[in-house]
């Protein structure tokens, strides 16, 4: 159970998370059908109308009036999310040529292609808010907008690909499932698509770790080492603790965000404990234990000073990731130019023939 505003069916396909995505999708359709709040009357206060729509759990659509701060917050959040998907292709792309079998290679290729797709769905959603793709790409390339700090950690072994799928994609899903109910329509719809696909990513990672953990001693040690290195950075993905989070309160009021950083982090920890047991791997936290009173696990917080260092650009791979992205973009310039020239030539011929 991950939401407090609905109950996913017990036999939801794919278990809890996928069931929740489907519940969010159903809620979206149901809200659209329920109160048919039409356009505001010509003399109606647009701000009151905006608040009304949000309160009724309806979606704000691109050409509705919205407060400038709402628009800016969404552009920042959706863009950072999109950048993360694009940069996130690198740590895993690192292992495509070295995957241990043809099957694993084909799966990893499909997964990395999905990440590119997620970036594109999200860029398209951000563009509906009145910013262009070129601006968004430039914001990433010259470092004015960030991407998730998790992708600044290196993938040292094949087991890291498994740990990323299980922990990093798992944390991403816990973060993203509530976004399927975000008040901004295009973002909510993109997230429904993304979450359905993420579920494959998480399972493929889990399967890689499960295979390694049930292999030779060396394979099991490699899996454990990967989990040891990825656990705390994954916990840090939920952002600073609630007390220090700057954007939370307003985003909650606007229903962009539905749960606080700490609530989501707790949910993730509670989810992982049982999954780690089945893997036969240890979560690297000596203080992890069930708290009967809270009905949740007590756990050690990640090192937020480290998170801040990585966000500020001083993680193990920040420079490498940015340099790679900038080079890839520059190396692709001739393709974009050639395609544009070809399109222009064909348009000209058509004009002459007409």
């Amino acid at each position, binding site marked *: 159970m991950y939401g407090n505003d609905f109950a996913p069916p017990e036999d939801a396909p794919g278990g809890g998370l996928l069931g929740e995505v489907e519940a969010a999708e159903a809620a979206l359709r149901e809200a659209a059908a329920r109160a048919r709040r*039409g*356009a*505001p009357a*010509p003399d109606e206060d*647009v701000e009151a109308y905006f608040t009304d729509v949000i309160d009724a759990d309806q979606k704000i*659509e691109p*050409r*509705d*009036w919205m407060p400038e701060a709402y628009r800016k917050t969404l552009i920042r959040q959706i863009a950072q999310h999109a950048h993360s998907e694009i940069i996130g292709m690198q740590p895993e792309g690192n292992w495509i040529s070295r995957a241990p079998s043809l099957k694993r290679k084909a799966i990893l290729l*499909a997964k990395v*292609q*999905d990440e590119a*797709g997620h970036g*594109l*769905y999200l860029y*398209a*959603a951000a*563009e509906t808010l009145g910013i*262009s*793709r*070129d601006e968004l*790409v*430039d914001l990433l*390339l*010259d470092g004015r907008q960030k991407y998730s700090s998790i992708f600044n950690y290196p993938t040292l072994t094949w087991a890291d690909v498994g740990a990323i799928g299980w922990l990093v994609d798992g944390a991403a899903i816990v973060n993203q499932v509530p976004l399927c109910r975000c008040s901004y329509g295009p973002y909510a*719809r*993109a997230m429904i698509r993304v979450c359905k*696909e993420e579920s494959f990513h998480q399972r493929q990672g889990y399967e890689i770790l499960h295979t390694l953990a049930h292999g030779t001693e060396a394979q099991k040690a490699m899996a454990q080492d990967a989990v040891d290195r990825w656990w705390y950075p994954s916990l840090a993905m939920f952002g600073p603790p609630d007390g220090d989070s700057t954007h939370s309160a307003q985003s909650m009021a606007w229903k962009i965000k539905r749960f606080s950083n700490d609530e989501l982090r707790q949910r993730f920890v509670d989810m992982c404990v049982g999954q780690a047991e089945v893997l036969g791997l240890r979560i690297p936290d000596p203080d992890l234990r069930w708290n009967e009173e809270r009905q949740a696990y007590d756990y050690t917080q990640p090192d937020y000073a480290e998170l801040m260092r990585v966000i500020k650009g001083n993680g193990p791979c920040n420079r490498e990731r940015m340099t790679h992205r*900038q080079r890839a*973009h*520059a190396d692709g*310039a001739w393709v*974009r*130019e050639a*395609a*544009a020239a*070809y*399109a222009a030539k*064909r*348009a000209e011929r058509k004009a002459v023939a007409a």
Partner: protein
Amino acid sequence: MTGQSSPLWEVFVRARRGLSHTHVGSLHAPDAELALRNARDLYTRRQEGVSIWVVPASAITASSPDEKDAFFDPAADKVYRHPTFYEVPDGVSHL
């Protein structure tokens, strides 16, 4: 880093025979042919469709640019267009 940006295309996918094309999102492409190919790779990686339309976003004319004019008002006071407006006497069937 720069370069002229390619136009925006809106993508519509027919999920299965018998259903209408539905808007699924948008993408950038220099021409229609590439827009179609990109749409296939972006929106139908898991057999989500049997047919795709791509339409230049600039070719779409929307009903009300600020979503707040009286364009749809004429329909609001014509409840008699709905069958539920009419009272059906008891005992009448097939109506």
